[in-house]
């Protein structure tokens, strides 16, 4: 009846996951009770859960990423503490628990923090920057988000029901095969990623289509803001790379469920095939994450320097070069597998070539600052912090791309420090910069600058105190994923890294405080103009938060930095009080398709993990039926009458005029 599931699946003998699970459960119940008692449920259902508005979905992606950042961060804290005390002792985490933690940490941070954070920002911003009303497939967008949330839910479920993978975040066979990992851990891993992978793929398809097909009048490719370009590059990579991940995990699952032999030791299976396939996805994945961050920094550096981006066309070229080359370097993840010197050298050099367009980007940001009037608001702090940190990560990255150097650095703590250097220093700093920068646009009020700056300085310092010691430990021969060790020379560095982790945690607390303080002071921080940073692209041309239809009129773009252009040339027109002719606007209706579909996908995923076959069929039919019902819909749009559009837009225009006339007075 319940497959492999019985009471022994609950880890009654392990206090840490049980207590953590209980706290989370109480938290969720408390929030749910509050929502129901206060009568917010209908609001949540109509305005958020079933929403197909790209801005709402973007915000929900970012909320998911933030919550999961706390989960992944807790794992990181536990690992740092373990390695600080597990010298000549077992520490406080037994291997089967420690191994789950580092596997979950990697999986969560990549798939459920970094991915939803950047996809959330792309969702929120790209349609606004392109001057359009929504993404190409609004309901599919909602489906994509909810399937990602399903994956996150399943990963967290493994904390209290069963176990998570103990194989590392890429679950290399044969260790992840049925023979060596007979538990449900790898199944939790694989099914979570299969389900959320579908979500990511549809998000990628959606964004590619949006950028290619839905640009406002005059928005040529070479007038698009840099963030749209990097979104395009990143989404193209998603569309090309995620199917590889899905296929690879499908083969692993066939091995585990149906006795296939793709990656087993026996019967002609080959683990080297898995290594190649997973990295053929895994390396582009790095650029899927970091390219949008590059886009964010381009916007931030240009806005806060009061200048257009230096060498825009060069930047476009660099972005697309990275997009293409990133597909040709996967082998550098396993130089030590015994490939010949020619193969190693070619992939090593290809990897270095990526450093060229990346270096160009750094220099172009540098020259954007040159001759600017730089305002050091929080997003700009993150941007400068990123440039300095990312160069160091780039240096160590090129270093491990030199095969003979990689022969002694592969899998070491040096490597761990390197990829955290680029992922924290690049992706996470970028996500935070984007969060600070576009928060006023999404919610209509700015974030508190004092707490924001504190958060930056603690995170920035904490990063170096945590990861410089890991570089050193790597140079001392320390390999990764050690639950305990007996080498005295490593110990002091592990202790310093744990201290750094504490500083990093203070940074995260400051971020939370910033949000709390800002929500409390939201009236004082209110952004009435829609343009709090003196921005340059179209998202600042509408109100904050934007109306559901984004723009009353599709903006007419006449050059790069469309909104800056309008501001400089059309101040006069804005003041002329002309009354535009408003028209009815058709917008997509909200739909519970995404939520219902994800509900059934959760059931199906859980049932597959535990071999509850009747439930698999139930979930599968449910999810499919949801699609069919949606496909047979009669009405998918509703009309916002011209009068309502006019009323909403008039308020926005009034605010802007008062701003412009104020500026004129000065």
């Amino acid at each position, binding site marked *: 009846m319940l497959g492999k599931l019985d009471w022994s699946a609950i880890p009654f003998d392990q206090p840490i996951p049980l207590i953590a699970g209980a706290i989370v459960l109480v938290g969720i119940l408390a929030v749910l009770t509050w929502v129901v008692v206060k009568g917010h449920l209908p609001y949540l259902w109509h305005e958020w859960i079933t929403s197909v508005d790209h801005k709402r979905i973007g915000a929900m992606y970012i909320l998911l990423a933030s919550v999961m950042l706390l989960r992944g961060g807790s794992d990181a804290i536990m690992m740092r503490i373990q390695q600080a005390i597990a010298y000549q002792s077992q520490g406080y985490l037994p291997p089967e628990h420690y191994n789950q933690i580092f596997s979950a940490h990697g999986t969560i941070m990549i798939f459920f923090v970094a991915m939803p954070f950047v996809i959330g920002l792309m969702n929120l911003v790209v349609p606004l920057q392109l001057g359009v009303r929504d993404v190409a497939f609004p309901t599919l967008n909602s489906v994509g988000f909810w399937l990602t949330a399903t994956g996150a839910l399943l990963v967290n479920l493994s904390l209290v029901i069963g176990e998570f993978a103990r194989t590392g975040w890429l679950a290399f066979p044969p260790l992840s095969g049925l023979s060596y990992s007979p538990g449900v851990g790898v199944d939790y891993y694989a099914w979570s990623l299969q389900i959320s992978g579908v979500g990511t793929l549809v998000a990628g398809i959606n964004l590619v289509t949006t950028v290619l097909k839905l640009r406002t009048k005059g928005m040529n490719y070479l007038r698009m803001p840099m963030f749209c370009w990097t979104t395009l590059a990143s989404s193209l990579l998603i569309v090309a790379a995620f199917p590889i991940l899905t296929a690879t995990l499908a083969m692993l699952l066939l091995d585990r469920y149906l006795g296939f032999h793709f990656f087993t*030791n026996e019967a002609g299976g080959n683990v080297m095939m898995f290594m190649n396939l997973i990295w053929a996805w895994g390396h582009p994945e790095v650029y899927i994450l970091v390219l949008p961050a590059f886009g964010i920094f381009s916007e931030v550096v240009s806005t806060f320097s009061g200048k257009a981006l230096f060498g825009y066309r060069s930047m476009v070229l660099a972005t697309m070069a990275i997009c293409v080359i990133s597909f040709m370097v996967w082998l550098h993840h396993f130089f030590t597998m015994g490939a010949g010197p020619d193969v190693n050298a070619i992939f090593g050099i290809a990897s270095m070539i990526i450093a060229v367009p990346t270096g160009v980007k750094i220099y172009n940001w540098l020259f954007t600052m040159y001759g600017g009037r730089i305002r050091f608001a929080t997003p700009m702090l993150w941007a400068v912090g990123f440039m300095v940190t990312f160069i160091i990560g780039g240096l160590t990255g090129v270093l491990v791309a030199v095969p*003979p150097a990689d022969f002694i650095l592969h899998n070491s703590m040096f490597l761990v420090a390197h990829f955290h250097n680029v992922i924290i220093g690049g992706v996470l700093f970028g996500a935070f910069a984007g969060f600070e920068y576009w928060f006023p646009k999404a919610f209509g009020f700015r974030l508190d600058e004092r707490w924001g700056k504190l958060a930056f300085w603690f995170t920035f310092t904490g990063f170096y105190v945590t990861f410089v010691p890991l570089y050193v430990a790597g140079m001392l021969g320390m390999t990764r994923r050690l639950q305990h060790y007996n080498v005295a020379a490593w110990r002091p560095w592990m202790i310093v890294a744990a201290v750094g982790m504490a500083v990093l945690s203070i940074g995260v607390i400051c971020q939370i405080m910033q949000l709390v303080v800002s929500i409390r002071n939201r009236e004082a921080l209110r952004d009435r103009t829609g343009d709090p940073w003196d921005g340059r692209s179209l998202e600042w041309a509408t109100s904050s938060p934007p109306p559901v239809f984004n723009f009353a009129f599709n903006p007419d773009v006449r050059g790069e930095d469309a909104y800056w252009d309008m501001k400089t040339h059309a101040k006069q027109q804005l003041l002329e009080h002309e009354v535009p002719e408003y028209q009815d606007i058709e917008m997509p209706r909200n739909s519970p398709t995404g939520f219902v579909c994800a509900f059934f996908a959760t059931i199906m995923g859980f049932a597959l993990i535990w071999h509850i076959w009747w439930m698999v069929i139930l979930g599968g039919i449910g999810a499919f039926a949801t699609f069919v019902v949606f496909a047979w819909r009669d009405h998918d749009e509703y009309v916002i009458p011209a009068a309502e559009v006019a009323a909403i837009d008039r308020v926005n225009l009034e605010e802007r005029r008062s701003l412009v006339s104020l500026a004129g007075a000065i």
Partner: protein
Amino acid sequence: MNLLDPQGPVATANSTILVDSVFIMLAIVVPTIFAILAFAFWFRASNPKARFQPDFVYSGRVEMVVWAIPALTVILLGGVAWIGSHQLDPAAPVPGTGSPVRIQAVSLDWKWLFIYPDQRVATVNTLTVPAGAELNFQLTSSSVMNTFFIPQLGSMIYTMNGMVTRLNLRADNEGKLKGMSAHFSGDGFPDMMFDVNVISPLAFPDWVATTAKTDAVLNEDSYKKLMQQGIETGRPTYRLEDPRLFDLIATQHIPPGPGPELISDAGRPHSGGHDAR
């Protein structure tokens, strides 16, 4: 285990390339970081002396320089990578004094077995080698993947079941070193550290002779017991019965080692549920 304190020619070459590459890159990274901080500071909005040039958004000369700097660096480093990859190919010979020592390493769950087919001895978790001689490693795994790595002797390499990888090293100085597995392989992974005793070439035959007198014999049966999952805290030594043992393992004539023992029916550690097959 300091990578910058190499004890053999391979490690010396590895770390030289590492250090050289770092310095080549620092030559442009340091000025760049300095320029970022300097520009950010000088062009701050509150500095009245900084000249505001909002139209400085393109310059062909600057573009050429910014593409050229990283490109030139990469051309230089690409050369280092190409030459280094060939010279330091793990399978490339590392000439030494005296006759080379053949060593067949097998990663087990969770210990290292070192077979000396020519000397007819085998050891677990301790590798004894003569200083100055070329060490020809053939490596495989009894079950999951591992990586054979002695940091101070240089280049690491994967071990995989059903396959043989090759690695040539040399230890130049007598002394004690540490080796490890550098690829996560399960719960006992941290205990896969092993001792490396580099002894004088004159003492090596004595060590072989002493070890060959061990009562314990390594053959197919004792190997199958050894490859069960478990941690070996001692340093057992064996007489090698059949010098072809490694080939039997690598060609899977001896099937891959078993996974964890199944105790109960649920998904908890050390238990597995019903075999889906």
